[in-house]
Every structure is written in structure tokens, then in C-alpha cells.
């Protein structure tokens, strides 16, 4: 495993907000969706492991009162992967859960996204994930909205 050294940190040439959005999409994707996206991009071959996929723990923190000092709620399983493309671009993935294969696919997509001329294609290949998620969220919001309640206070006799 390469020892992380801040000096080796990747230059922030990429927009971290956009990169985070792609990482988030990969995290929400089903493994078969990532397979499909990579197959569509036709460029998964030759990616080598910078770090073999590995499952570990991240301590999930909350805040006292929701907005105060942090406290440790409990751990979550997290799987990470890091790959390098033949062209030198590196990609990372950190996902909840224990799916090593999926983390590696996501790391490969992250690496491809690092290549400026491939960025748009990667985002397009992941667009179906975004639209599926949006549909699911809308449907969920509609079901939840149907349970929105209005309580009425009954006047007490003696008041």
C-alpha cells in the first residue's frame, strides 16, 4: 500500500465539486450500472491497482444535539480502491459497504474522469444513474408527502 504523503497529493487541477459529484454517483450506482458505464467508455483495460481494493471501517460521527460537539455514533464498513491508468491518471473510490469489485470500478471511472478529454464522456455514461436516482427520490418524496399530517388541537371543555 502506498504511504500517503501530502507532498504527493494530486494537483487540484480538477474541480473538486464536480469530482465529488461523480464520486457520489458512483457510490449510489449499482455494480451493473458501473459495469455498463465502463463498457460504454470502452477503456477499463490496463488499469492497475495503486492499492488493491480493501474493506475497513470508518467511525461515523454525529453531533451532540445535532449541531454541537461531535461524538462517535458507530462504525460503518467502507471499501476503498485506488487505480492508475496506463496514461498515468489515478482514481480513488471510498464506498460504504464491502463490495470490492464495485469500488475498483468506481476508482477506474474516477481515474478516467481525471483525463480532461474524457470527463464529459464519463459524466454522460453515469447520467442514467443520476436519472434513476432522481426518479427514485421523486417517487419516494411523493409517497412521503401523502403521509404529511395536519393535527388540530381540540378545545378543552373547561377553557
Amino acid at each position, binding site marked *: 500500500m*502506498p504511504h*500517503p504523503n*501530502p507532498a*504527493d*497529493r*494530486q494537483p487540484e487541477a480538477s474541480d*473538486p465539486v464536480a469530482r*465529488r459529484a461523480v*464520486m*457520489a454517483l458512483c*457510490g*449510489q450506482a449499482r455494480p451493473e450500472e458501473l459495469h455498463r458505464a465502463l463498457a460504454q467508455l470502452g477503456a477499463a483495460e490496463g488499469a492497475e491497482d495503486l492499492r488493491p481494493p*480493501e474493506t*475497513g*471501517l*470508518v*467511525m*461515523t*460521527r*454525529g*453531533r*451532540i*444535539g*445535532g*449541531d*454541537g*460537539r*461531535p*461524538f*462517535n*455514533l*458507530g*462504525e*460503518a*464498513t*467502507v471499501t*476503498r480502491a*485506488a487505480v492508475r491508468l496506463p496514461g498515468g491518471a489515478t482514481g*480513488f473510490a*471510498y*464506498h*460504504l*459497504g*464491502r463490495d470490492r469489485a464495485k469500488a475498483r470500478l468506481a476508482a477506474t471511472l474516477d481515474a478516467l474522469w481525471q483525463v480532461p478529454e474524457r470527463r464529459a464522456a464519463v459524466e454522460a455514461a453515469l447520467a442514467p444513474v443520476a436519472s434513476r436516482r432522481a426518479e427514485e*427520490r421523486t*417517487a*419516494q*418524496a*411523493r*409517497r*412521503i*408527502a*401523502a*403521509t*404529511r*399530517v*395536519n*393535527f*388540530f*388541537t381540540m378545545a378543552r371543555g373547561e377553557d
Partner: protein
Amino acid sequence: MYVAVKGGEAAIANAHRLLAETRRGDTSVPELSVAQIREQMALLVDRVMTEGSLHDPDLAALALKQARGDLIEAVFLVRAYRTTLPRFGASEPVETGAMSLRRRISATYKDLPGGQVLGPTFDYTHRLIDFALAAEGEAPVAAEAEPLADAAHAPRVTDLLGRDGLIEPSAPDDGTPPGDLTREPLDFPADRALRLQALARGDEGFVLALGYSTQRGYGRTHPFVGEIRVGTVAVEFVPEELGFSVPLGEIDLTECQMVNQFHGSAEVPPQFTRGYGLAFGQSERKAMAMALVDRALRAEELGEPVGAPAQDQEFVLAHCDALQATGFVEHLKLPHYVDFQAELELVRRLRAEHAARHAAPKAGTEAEMQEAAE
């Protein structure tokens, strides 16, 4: 004291084989899949994750299958599994105010920005057994409605109260990392962050009973449910090698904000105080009980008389962990032959002495005088 024993290997191996066969039950009945447990025993899975202190629905479901549905055994399996994994670090604190809500209720305000949504709840059901569930069939389809414009913005009720200074503010984040009882054994007195960690993984039944005891008068706190919210939050983590926070994914959480009476002091004007509960999944009872006990454990800090069990942090925190409790209780069934032999010898001797005294009262009196002289 437990003294190790040897032997019994064949019987133990066979007992485990028998366990495996028994776990499967009647083979003419289809086997449960882990996914079925995860999806259809979801609240049990949530409880295993919460008390196992490990978020992983598939793992919790598998543990339940292996444990034949024994909750604490499943917690044991999950806790044992986590010890095999490296720790990558700690997440950024989750932002429950930005939770994508599936349920949100308040017992203090009927009209709230963002509204009250019941979500999937047992509340207001009649608790009549539904025999239709025993017959296989399609699940009913949920109703739908157009979300109102304010549905996406639902501030915490405590934030609303806080604007007018009617409730104490949360202790601000001063940047010190919270203590972690999985790294350092609990030391008393434990600060609130450690207490919440212990309560979060504590046994729901124990924490529930303690919370109940405060309602019945053993350390009364006059609680109101300011808010319960259930939904998903994003979990973020800053990997060293990246230097920016990475979205790990989303988890389901239940948060309970208890609002409690406080009469104020010389320094502090009267204001409401808070008790806080947070749990993985949809774990409302746990989050509520946790919030009650969290508030009870603040008695000393708030200058209230301390005396009830729920206010005694050593009593609460040292006994709330189901795994520790079951470990010590259940070890009693392991062979204690040597220990018991010693007790047996002692009882036999005492009985012999007792019999001797009663058989010969005069001699007994003499013996007693002799003993007293010694």
C-alpha cells in the same frame, strides 16, 4: 472464578453441526435469504447495526441468519467481525439538519416549517394481527401526493427554539476529537460525547427501562419530544491521500431531540434543556430512550439532585452494553467445576460443624466458647 477445562472436542463439533442443521429448520420450508432478512426484517437489522455499532445492513442480516434471530448473538458476531478490519478514520460529523426525511414528527409544535410527515409508522395502527400477511400476496401500493413547496426545508425544532434563546445551545465544536470507547476503555466520569457513544450502542431494552424509570419519578426530567426525524444523511470522509471530503454514501438514521424543563439558576435564565438520541436505521424507541437517559445523565452538570439509577453514569454506562452483560451472565454456564468443588467442601464442613453443635448442645456451647476464645 472460571478454571479452564479440557476435552469434549467431538461433542462440541457435533453440537455445532446440530446447530447448523437446526438453524435451517424444516427443509420443506424455503430457506431465508440474507436479502430477505435485510428487506423484510429491516427494523431488526437496524437494531443489530445500532447495538453492534457497525453500519452494514447485509452483514447485520447475515449475522441474524447465523444467530437464528438471536439479537444479542447477532450483535456479538458483528462486533467480532469489526475487530478484523482496519480503521480508515472517522467521518465528518453527519448533518442531520439536512436529512432527506422519511418521517418527521414533533409533539411540541403542530405546525412546523417542512411539516410533520408520519412516514412508515406503527403509530396509530390498532395492533390487530393482520392474518392477510400469512397469505402470500402483493403488497399494497402506497398512496402518493404532490410534495408541498416547503417539504425540502425542514429545520430542526431545537433550531427554531434556539432562535429565541428558549432552549440551551449545544456545546460548540471546539475541534477536539471526541473520545472513543472502542479505543480507550471507559473512565469515569465520562464526558457527554462518550456517554452518547455508549448509549448509542447500548442495549435497547436496558436503555428503554432506564428512560422509563425517569418518567416514573426516578430522576424526573419533564420531557417533550421536540422532534423525531428518520431519513438518510450523506456520510463524508476525508482520505489523507485526497485531502478533500469524499462522499462515502448515504445511511439511514433516527434522531430524537427531547426538550426538557429547566428552572434556571443564578447565572442562567430559565430555558429548556436538551436530551439527544441518534441511532442507525429506523430505531425510534432506541433514539427516544437514549435521549431520555442522556438528559438524566446531565443532572449533575445542570445542578439537579442526583440519586436515581438513570442519573448514575457509572451504573448506566457500565451496564448498558448487551454484549458485556451477556458475556458475564452467560459465562456462568461454562464449567465451574473447580470453583464449585471448593464451595462444596466449605458447605460440607459448615454443615458438619452445625450438626455437631446441634447433636450435643452442651458440647456445642463449649465449642462456641472455644471459638469465641480463639
